[in-house]
């Protein structure tokens, strides 16, 4: 039986996961995004990390899973299991406040508060991350990744990406 590494505490694991970037948006980590839901350490030192996918078809999911596993192994865990859960479903409301500011500085409009599931044919209002104007136009309702849309600001004339509110 492997001795439990002294540094292997839930706090240490959460801290190391804070450094695992989202592969598609490297200014935020997997914990900033609210993707990590739970960390458990078994008696034998095996670690179970439960995470929830942002979008079901996100092509970065297996990269994220491997990065989480690697980060925890690097802390000295004897075994790591990265489990997926769909409940509760991920929402952009879980993106941390300071991460929203980093997103904005990176040029991505942070998401508006998520609506609870109404089916409507119109989108939410979005603010330009550069000049804070609401005078923006969506130029593409789908962006370079599943979680983003494309906009142009008519006030400062800059194009930008915006997070979908999910």
């Amino acid at each position, binding site marked *: 039986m492997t001795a439990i590494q002294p540094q292997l505490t839930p706090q240490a694991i959460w801290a190391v996961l804070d450094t695992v970037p989202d592969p598609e948006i490297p200014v935020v980590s997997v914990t900033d995004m609210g993707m990590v839901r739970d960390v458990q350490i078994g008696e034998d030192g095996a670690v179970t990390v439960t995470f929830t996918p942002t979008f*079901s*078809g996100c092509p970065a999911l297996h990269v994220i899973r491997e990065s989480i596993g690697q980060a925890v192994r690097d802390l000295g865990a004897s075994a790591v299991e990265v489990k997926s859960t769909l*409940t509760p479903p991920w929402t952009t409301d879980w993106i941390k406040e300071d991460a929203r500011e980093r997103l904005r500085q990176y040029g991505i409009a942070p998401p508006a508060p998520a609506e609870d599931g109404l089916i409507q*044919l119109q989108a939410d209002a979005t603010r330009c991350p550069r000049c804070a104007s609401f005078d923006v136009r969506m130029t593409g309702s789908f962006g370079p990744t*599943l979680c983003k849309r494309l906009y142009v600001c008519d006030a400062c004339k800059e194009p930008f990406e915006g997070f979908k509110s999910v």
Partner: protein
Amino acid sequence: MTAPALILSDVQQAALIRKLTALADDEIILAQRGGEWTGHAPILEEDIALANIAQDELGHAGMYLELRRALDGTDADALAFTRSADEFTSSRFVELPKGDWAFTMLRQYLYDAYEALWLDAARKSTYEPLAEVANKAFREERFHLQHTALWVERLALGTPESMKRTQDALNALWPYVGQLWQPVEGEDGLIEAGLLPDLNAVKTRWEGLIVPHLTIQCGLILPPGGAAQPGRDTHTEYLAPLLDEMQSVYRAHPDTPYW
């Protein structure tokens, strides 16, 4: 994913497997049709949008097939990439060739409205793993519907040419769309048990959403519908060539890791 909270009878399990597979098959085939536009869409943003939508639909298919795997152990990739046209249970509606842009957007719109409303109802499924998947997929599907609804409006209210093409697309698609509402064998039992949404109730909501939008808002004329629909074992001539292309890489290199 949590374990199923209720015990399924053999009959229920078989019917649920059929339904999950039918749901996944529609998503896979429609995603493949959407993917055919990659690099060919009228503008770059739409190329990206349709690829996004196709990717989401494949994500949904993956979740449905993961639910099936939990029931009978079958592998999602093997199901998608090794079954022949005879074994697929896609509807003819999604098999039809991609057509022009109006056809593509209108089909996706009709499907998105159907899927969003079905998922909305499936969130209340007594089969917890399905309710979880529906909750997840529903959030994504709303974006598809907003996008394609806007395109249908734009095309219908655009130029005489775009109006004509949208009306032609509606005329061509309407006789097929009814197949989405055809239950699989044993589905009625699952509906009664609360595992699956009541298809008729979902259909009523679907009509209430899209018919006024298409006719009053977009000025399109609804063609006569209501023709009898064949089962999901009846395919168009277009499915086999689509599968030939979609499955060619997997069949040539079945042991290669996907990444």
